[in-house]
């Protein structure tokens, strides 16, 4: 006979006295789970939620790290939108970067994925080689290397000189400096490429065979079959890459030496935020900038999800 059945045979009063309390039951049943959760919970509350709430409060203050924050209401936000040309300059640079780098990177990643999907030999090797820039891309070392390649006496200009062309200093020319960062971003196509490759492999070969029997050209097969069936992957990659592009910081910081020059042409939003926070110690204003960026990314993501039902095709 089990302990439970023994208990149920006891008189009512005695049974009530031996029934463990709610807290005791939670402690016995759930405590190990909470214990395992604790390290993450501490990190989440202390390093994510805590700083977020603090930064939201600070965005309504004037705070220089040395003195106590002064409540200024919505002044930081008002100044940002009405009296800060650098805010708008950084917004323009960031939007330009997002609008060009994300589609170009995705298109390039898809093109390479389609080439690799043709059953070539040594696919795992190529996959690893193409993925490598994604691992290295956001590092300081690569940004420094990029600066060397596009400098006036860099590799690009040396190659151009071999065919008699005098190239400009790509990173100190405001017309080309942002494009060097866009090219760097496209070079880091490995991550979306791997996801595209996985998506392409999910498309049954039968569909292409049926289409080829119908006389569909390779282009028509791509437009009418590959792209629609790949839209869930395109959607995922577009969201992830757009968020990454909005957050892009290291390459611009290294290549412009932290200035966003020439003529603010590489002044990414996050770089401007960094300057305000750690250059001028305007933590309140920097917090407000961070919240505007969060709002911007949230609006973009929400818009993407809302419109996805019109262009993303899920099989099931």
């Amino acid at each position, binding site marked *: 006979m089990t302990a439970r059945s023994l208990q149920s045979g006891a008189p009512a009063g005695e049974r009530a006295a031996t029934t463990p309390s709610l807290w005791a039951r939670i402690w016995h049943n759930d405590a190990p789970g909470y214990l395992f959760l604790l390290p993450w919970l501490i990190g989440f509350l202390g390093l994510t939620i805590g700083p977020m709430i603090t930064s939201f409060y600070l965005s309504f203050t004037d705070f220089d790290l040395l003195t106590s924050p002064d409540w200024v209401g919505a002044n930081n936000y008002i100044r940002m939108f009405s009296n800060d040309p650098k805010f708008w300059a950084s917004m323009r640079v960031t939007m330009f970067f997002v609008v060009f780098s994300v589609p170009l990177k995705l298109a390039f990643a898809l093109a390479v994925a389609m080439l690799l999907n043709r059953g070539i030999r040594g696919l795992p090797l190529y996959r690893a080689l193409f993925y490598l820039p994604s691992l290295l891309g956001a590092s300081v070392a690569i940004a420094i290397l990029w600066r060397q390649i596009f400098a006036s006496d860099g590799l690009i200009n040396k190659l151009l000189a071999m065919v008699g062309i005098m190239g400009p200093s790509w990173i100190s020319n405001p017309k080309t400096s942002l494009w060097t960062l866009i090219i760097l971003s496209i070079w880091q196509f490995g991550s979306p490429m791997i996801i595209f490759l996985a998506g392409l492999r999910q498309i*049954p070969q*039968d*569909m292409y*065979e*049926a*289409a*080829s*029997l*119908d*006389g*569909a050209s390779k282009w*028509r097969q791509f437009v*009418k*079959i590959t792209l*629609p*069936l790949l*839209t869930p992957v395109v959607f995922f990659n577009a969201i992830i890459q757009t968020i990454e592009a909005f957050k892009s910081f290291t390459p611009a910081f290294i290549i412009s030496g932290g200035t966003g020059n020439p003529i603010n042409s590489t002044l990414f939003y996050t770089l401007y935020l960094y300057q305000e926070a750690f250059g001028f110690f305007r933590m309140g204003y920097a917090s407000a900038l961070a919240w505007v960026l969060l709002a911007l990314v949230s609006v973009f993501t929400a818009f993407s999800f809302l419109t996805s039902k019109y262009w993303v*095709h899920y*099989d*099931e």
Partner: protein
Amino acid sequence: MATNIELRKIVKSYGEVKVVHGIDLTINPGEFTVFVGPSGCGKSTLLRMIAGLEPITGGELLIDSERMNEVPAARRGIAMVFQSYALYPHMNVYQNLAFGLETAKMPKAEIAQRVAKAAAILKIEPLLQRKPKQLSGGQRQRVAIGRAIVREPRIFLFDEPLSNLDAELRVQMRVEIAKLHNDLGNTMIYVTHDQVEAMTMADKIVVLRAGVIEQVGAPLELYNSPKNLFVAGFIGSPKMNFLTASADGSKVNVAGGSLELGRAVAGTTTLGVRPEHITLAEGSGVKLADVRVDLVESLGGQTVIYATTADNQPINIVLEGQRSVALGTMVAAHIDPARLHLFNAEGDVI
């Protein structure tokens, strides 16, 4: 006008591995031909070569006397129904049916007319606006067939189209495809590993094994006169019984007894008899052997007896109607000598 297909010494190799070994075959206009054989026998590869989805390594493929080896799939006048249906999941039924016609840049009015006609034939008019995921297996199969019909091809190819359906639906679709062939009259090639499908649908069956044709003929021709052990065992359900035998002059020794067949039996090593050709009634044919009843299955219309001969060889008997046979008893199996099949050591019929 229906189309003639001729295969001359068709070979298919993947690198060093040869999978189809010089197939010669003529498919007459309007014929419903079934390629049947076990997995890996090359039947689907052969079909895909005819479709133009696989390059032909050697030999010649002629459609209406025109060499097709180098002609792209789309220009062979062929439509194919795939095992997986291969419907485009992001398009509705109408768009799936219209895809090939739009690709051919056909006027919209004609597309609508052809889709409506195919939908009426297959009774899928109410489904035209649905996506494939909203259809049952049978409905998807109909749409896949519809996609072939709308193109009005010279030849229809079916690659195991019913293997994803349940047993009941398979029988239903089998009848519908046979009716479709009668109505349209096109040349059709159908690949299956199910010999019942082959027997019930085909005008001509091509039995393949390991990339070689074992026998070609009408269903009953293959059933009544199989050329070898493989065809004898593959065609017919339940499978033909094979008993180890030996020749003794004009007699055949089998299952502990001997049979006087009154014809040449030299070289016999195996005797084949179909379960449905064995009776328990004395006076019907000659006695084959006394057998011990191990198991009885009563199917209502038939009674299937699983038995063992005196020399311990399994033998199955199918009797018409409902019979009462006790387990463990000995019964005498009788056969009509004209329905016996004798095979030599190479497996060829004598």
